[in-house]
């Protein structure tokens, strides 16, 4: 079972991100999954989060108190949710929007998703980049399921743009993983 919390502010497509991840797991990877979302006290804007659980067994209680994976796309969200992340959990952030503070030993996996999106000419697409990144970094959902779900979830005519955004995120993740492996092995080498 994997418990993923994706957070940010209204308008960043946080819920859609969660929906694609959860849907990819359910319909693509044929696992069980649930998505619940929550908004802050305000009607719109403000903090916003999506909680996704992916599991091989039926999920009864769909709420997450201590996520395995926390994705933060805003500082406010980071400040609010970081304390809930498990000790063994994975922290993913948008590099330019979040400055991690008070880290309790988690490695910070960051991607400048919003910046890349800006470069692609569409700020709104940062969340798709993030999905790509999550896919490669966490392996919570398969590449096939993820990319297929992105394709079927975006407006007609924008598939190409979105897939290329997805790929950017995915590859950024792969590269990071490689680097991390190297680094990790490097450390090990040094250690031995």
């Amino acid at each position: 079972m994997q418990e993923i919390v994706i957070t940010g502010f209204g308008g960043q497509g946080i819920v859609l991100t969660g929906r694609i991840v959860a849907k990819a797991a359910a319909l693509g990877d044929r696992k069980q999954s649930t998505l619940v979302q929550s908004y802050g006290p305000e009607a719109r804007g403000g903090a916003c989060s999506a909680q996704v659980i992916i599991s091989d067994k039926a999920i009864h209680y769909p709420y997450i108190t201590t996520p395995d994976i926390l994705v933060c796309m805003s500082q406010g969200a980071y400040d609010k949710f970081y304390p809930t992340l498990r000790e063994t959990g994975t922290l993913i952030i948008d590099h330019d929007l979040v400055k991690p503070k008070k880290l309790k030993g988690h490695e910070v996996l960051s991607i400048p998703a919003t910046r890349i999106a800006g470069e692609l000419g569409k700020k709104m697409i940062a969340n798709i980049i993030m999905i790509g990144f999550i896919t490669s970094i966490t392996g919570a959902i398969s590449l096939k399921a993820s990319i297929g779900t992105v394709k079927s979830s975006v407006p007609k005519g924008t598939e190409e743009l979105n897939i290329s955004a997805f790929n950017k995120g995915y590859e950024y993740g792969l590269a990071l993983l490689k680097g991390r492996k190297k680094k990790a092995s490097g450390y090990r080498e040094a250690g031995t």
Partner: protein
Amino acid sequence: MKNSSLSNKHPLDELIRTDRIPHIWCPGCGVGTVFSSFLIALRESGIDLKNTVVVSGIGCSGRAAGYVKLDSFHTTHGRAIPFATGIKLANPDLNVIVFSGDGDLFAIGGNHFIHAARRNVDLTVICVNNFTYGMTGGQAAATTPSMAKTTTTPKGNSESPFNLPHLAYASGATYVARWTMLHARDLTEAIKEAILKRGFSFIEALAPCPTGYGRRNKEQPLQTLKIYQEKAIIKNGANPAEADIDFNKGIILGKFIDIKKPTWLDTYNSIYRPQDNSDIIDAA
């Protein structure tokens, strides 16, 4: 830079619950502007603010009651007017102002509106008409233009909207005006007049709801304001029956009705306790 400065205190702060700011209204939402005009009008009217109460229903516009630093009530959906009527009749010394949305006042609350107007209860009713139910995410309202897209009319609204000033007039309102939030000065003046008016007065304030309405109808807030600017036709005294809102041909704005009539309480007092109240009746 002597001609500008950063600041912490706004001249309207004394009228605002600053501990609740920022308010919930979206960037580009017109409710805040109408609210600001309202506060200025309140201040300029010179009425006794301690004896002034603001009543709202439910909706984004209805949140206004939560931000004004006066006695203020956020009631149930559609019921601001009868709630306000109870206040006014129980204590006639109070200035009672209803500030709410088009859905609240004219969908679920339509009956209370026409009856309060008929009775000429001495209330000021300010309606933020953003052509939709903003709070619930942008469904069609009784004010939504024909063919406009909303979450419940994905291919376009098949209904026609009310002409609110006409409805107000037909119901008996003694003061009726319409402005857009862009016409902030006229709006402020109108609200001031309405507040000082003895009798049921009604102001329709057009305002953008970019989140609920604009987004689906491909209107950025500034574009909406541009339409307000370009299509505005100011016609004070226009026949309310002809004061349609037509985003292509023109939006008729102005003060349409301003007549004298004894209020509900004036008449009640004159019939039911003529001795006690001769002065009040004179004032009508």
